[in-house]
């Protein structure tokens, strides 16, 4: 594949399987295929949104990309350097260019560290600057994410959910990354606070020209934040397209169902909803063929068994997993 020059992150056929063990000898009897053959790229300064239901492998994908998990198979390249097999020691140096923000700041921030220490920690790990520089940098970062000056001396529990998420963002920004992996950064927040944090993320992206991998389950939020969107279902990307295109012209039945399930905040709109039956099937023994056709019990589902489901470009930049049942 031709690589464009400003490709920041390139993920090729990434697989993340977790062994399932059982029996007396704890032999491997199966695998949870949390991420099963995913490919995408992110260009510098761009936001790729990743949506899907819980259990579809979004967060696992995010973690495998930054190697908080070691992928089973596949290749992740960052600025042209493959990081999939890189040693932890070398990886640590590179990590200053990609940082992660987690969903629940209450859990991802060490409760016994002051906010100042938390935000300075990435600088310490990367051995950046002396103590005085770090103190100034922390003050600058806290101010930038909209926290009060005295925040550095306080502890995470003294802050509300929205403010804690700002601490998480300040921490990720400390080392001037080029890419932020944002795993459900606004899902736990109230609407008015959610919009404050989204505005902050948009501002920061402009200011520091960072790229985002924005993982969320709220499609309206993802659409607002993203340039392109990838829809994930049971460990695979079923559709990927520019954000406006995917909303105006969804191709895959799963994307259509997801879109129609969003409650519209307007009582005068009554839409025909596609009510999906059931839940995402277990990734331990995923159904053969098209997993979504299987869930909805599509009449043409049997045709998808045993054949390769190709990921094809239907219009410029609009990719969809072709199958006999879900794509017209």
């Amino acid at each position, binding site marked *: 594949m031709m690589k464009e020059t400003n490709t920041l992150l390139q993920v090729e056929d990434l697989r993340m399987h977790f062994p399932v063990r059982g029996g007396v000898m704890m032999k491997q009897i199966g695998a949870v295929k949390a991420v099963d053959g995913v490919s995408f790229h992110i260009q510098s300064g761009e936001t790729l949104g990743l949506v899907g239901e819980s259990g579809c492998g979004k967060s696992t994908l995010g973690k495998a990309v930054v190697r908080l998990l070691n992928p089973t198979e596949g290749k992740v390249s960052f600025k042209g350097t493959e990081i999939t097999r890189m040693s932890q020691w070398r990886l640590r140096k590179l990590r200053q260019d990609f940082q992660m923000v987690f969903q629940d700041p209450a859990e991802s921030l060490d409760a016994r560290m002051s906010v100042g220490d938390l935000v300075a920690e990435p600088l310490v790990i990367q051995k950046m600057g002396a103590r005085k520089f770090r103190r100034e940098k922390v003050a600058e970062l806290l101010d930038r994410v909209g926290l009060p000056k005295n925040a550095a001396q306080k502890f995470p529990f003294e802050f509300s959910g929205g403010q804690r998420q700002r601490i998480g963002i300040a921490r990720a920004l400390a080392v001037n990354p080029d890419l932020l992996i944002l795993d459900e950064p606004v899902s736990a927040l*109230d609407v008015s606070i959610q*919009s404050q944090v989204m505005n902050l993320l948009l501002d920061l992206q402009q200011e520091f020209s960072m790229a985002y991998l924005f993982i969320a389950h709220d499609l309206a939020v993802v659409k607002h934040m993203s340039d392109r969107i990838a829809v994930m279902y049971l460990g695979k990307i079923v559709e990927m397209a520019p954000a406006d295109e995917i*909303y105006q012209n969804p191709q895959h039945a799963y994307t259509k169902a997801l879109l129609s399930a969003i*409650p519209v*905040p307007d*009582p005068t709109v009554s839409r025909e909803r596609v009510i999906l039956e059931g*839940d995402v099937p277990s990734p331990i023994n995923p159904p053969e063929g098209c997993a979504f056709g299987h869930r909805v019990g599509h009449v043409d589902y049997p045709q998808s068994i045993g054949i390769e489901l190709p990921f094809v470009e239907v219009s410029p930049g609009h990719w969809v997993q072709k199958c006999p049942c879900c794509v017209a």
Partner: protein
Amino acid sequence: MSNLLEIRDLVTSFDTDTGWVRAVDGVSFSVDRGKTVGLVGESGCGKTVTAMSIIDLLPKPSGDILEGKVLFKNRDLRQISPREMRRVRGGEIGVIFQEPMAALNPVHRIGKQLIEILKLHQEISKKDALKKAVELLDAVGIPAPEKRLSNYPHQLSGGMRQRVMIAIALACEPDLLIADEPTTALDVTVQAQILDLIASMQKKLGMAVLMITHDLGVIAQNCDEVVVMYAGRIVERAPVKELFARPLHAYTKGLLASIPQIDSVRKTQLNTIPGQVAAIQDFVTGCRFCQRMERIDSSLSRQRPEYREVSPDHWVETCPQCYQG
């Protein structure tokens, strides 16, 4: 009057280190038979405390109703004995909680929990109760209900657990269902299933629903009337179409404006409400939204703004700065 539930000047208070604080501070609204009323607001606004006050599930003695009336079928629920209250709760009033894993008993099978509620509220033999339990699980769309009876809650998915919660809440065919964030923990696709289920059961049983949520999308698509709470008080209340077409309080307007819309222009700044809901012990007597907007110095906002009906069925807290008629 067709009022099924009427709440008048409810004040619910909690004992904290800083003294008694009013989590719900003079709230009045009603729910008509067969209607759905949405109670909306950010976390910390007193939505859940209001619901818990209705069904007497406050953590007494550290939390209690100080003033007001809770009239259900013209009977004040504050005056009845705990024994009668237990009959109302789960019988005439069904409840669904946000997190079904916390509300279901993890060490009892689904079947046992369903039969328990049936036997508690009705003269029914164990055999009939078992039959009814299967019917209930079937009604809420659980496949192979006979087999599911012997499952424990952890063996079910989140959506399935919420269905079991609904089955338990509806077991005694209540007149009122209180649903506290019934879909917040669920995916959009499952949320749509659960909301559809509640609506169809409502039609079938003719019950009223008090739907507590922070999602204005859920409100718009499922409710007849909306009550907007802010910092322990109702700031606005109106029929759903009226509220979305003509919001009159600055907080309601702010909430509506801050939702990212599917057809909004991407990557533009969203409208937001600055600041956050004050902590309960810091609530002021005057307009609390002015407090958030840091307009508190204004001499006009020192006393509690009047809450009145400004047009038929449209009630607003008429703070001179937040009421924008």
